[in-house]
């Protein structure tokens, strides 16, 4: 008898996969806005998975940052660029063949891994800390260095975006 969290997990995981699939390969619409909206749904489903793991902070941040800010800007750009429905591309047979082989190989490996897998004896380290305080403490002590490097990374992104989007003055 599956418990409620189990059922929720499978439902949310299913939604995540379904929306993810519809985001990249929607058979009904090739409208970029639709893809973006399905990506938003994917992100929200993933936030649900975080909630199941008791990682409320991550869930909230996932929605706040990705669904609420990043994807809005995506939509913004898609709309401003006025991307029309993507044309149906002619399929490149060679690329399709090679890509198919790669996908089949990785899928085969995954299936094999799933079939042979033994239940992992809680190998995933310590339990993920969901609440904000331990997370903040870790970020500012143990992982201070990667955290600070990210600030440099953001600086790079900022300089790069301003540079690339600014009109060249002659």
């Amino acid at each position, binding site marked *: 008898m599956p418990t409620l969290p189990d059922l929720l997990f499978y439902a949310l995981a299913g939604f995540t996969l379904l929306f993810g699939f519809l985001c990249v390969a929607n058979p009904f619409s090739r409208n970029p806005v639709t893809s973006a909206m399905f990506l938003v749904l994917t992100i929200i489903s993933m936030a649900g998975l975080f909630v199941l793991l008791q990682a409320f902070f991550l869930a909230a941040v996932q929605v706040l940052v990705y669904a*609420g800010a990043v994807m809005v800007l995506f939509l913004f750009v898609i709309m401003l660029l006025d991307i029309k429905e993507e044309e149906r591309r002619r399929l490149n047979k060679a690329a399709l063949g090679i890509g198919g082989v790669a996908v089949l190989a990785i899928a085969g490996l995954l299936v094999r891994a799933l079939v042979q897998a033994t239940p992992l004896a809680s190998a995933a380290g310590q339990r993920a800390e969901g609440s904000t305080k331990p997370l903040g403490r870790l970020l500012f002590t143990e992982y201070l260095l990667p955290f600070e490097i990210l600030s440099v990374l953001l600086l790079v992104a900022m300089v790069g975006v301003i540079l690339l989007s600014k009109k060249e003055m002659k």
Partner: protein
Amino acid sequence: MDFIRYLDPTVQFMLFSAVKIVLVFAVAMTGVAYAVLVERKVSAWIQDRVGPNRAAPFFVHYLPVVGPFLTKLGIFQPMADGLKFILKEDFTPSYVRKIYFWIAPAISCVPALMTLAVIPFGSTLGNANNPMVIADLNVGILYTFGIVSLGVYGIVLAGYASNSKYPFLGGIRSSAQMISYEIAMGMSVVSVFLVVGDLNLSKVVAYQSGGIHEWLIFKQPLAFFIFLVSAFAETNRLPFDLPESETELVGGYHTEYSSMKFALFFLGEYAAMIGASAMMVTLFLGGWTPIWGGAPASSLLVGLSHIVWFLAKLGFFMVLFIWVRWMLPRFRYDQLMNLGWRRFIPLALVNIIITAGLIALTHK
């Protein structure tokens, strides 16, 4: 009501939650309806007019004294408005993108209502195990921000779905505006949480209990100011209502909408105002705590009085929202962006640094 005590705790919890949800929803919806009325009345008084003073069902006419008085106050106007919206022709232009055109009003209205779930609107009703909040989340404020940030999709999609120029411009404006002010808003709140030390909104209220001098508006005035102004921008209210500014964009993102779909946008806007006001009450005005004292209620009567306190403070902010709308002119778009990015975000950052510094100095 004795049977409740014999129920399973889970069932009890679900029952209470369901009741709370229904009540909050009902109050919020009524609040929206009457906020519209207040808006019309206040605007009328400010412009030296009378405002709605006619609409009334037939029987009111027969009541002596009270009847004409209520009619004059426009108490029945919201019902007439609602009926009008429902009965109007729901016209869908032929050139719109149908699915988004239908979804957008719902998306703009649902998140605004969902934010109310984490707001503690009262202490208890005598039973300490049943706090007057629908969901007492540990990350309450982040939840609110996350949900609020989804509200922008309603407007953006409405602009996109309408497939016409002015709504589109409105949608684009609102997405840029709401994201910009979300940053300022989020940063202004950080200093509040530095002071309180918790993200849980009930804890924020508990921190402020003890009287008016404990309220965070006096400890973090700058944060309050930034939050207040950002709230105006987030709810697309004047002086920041550029997404729908009627003089430039006809009606902005809802130009092509009519009837109940339009009403949903209307509802969304006022629900967002209620949500923002509730947040400000909780964060800065002590939530449900009265201006003196503020221990959780031990009896039903005190509990109800706390809820009244909360609603009174909420009403204050609603009137403020409305009053500002009719007093201030609209900003220009570049002024809006300038204010958000070059004034408020640095100010909020400075506020965070100063607050953190003070806390570091005082807490050894």
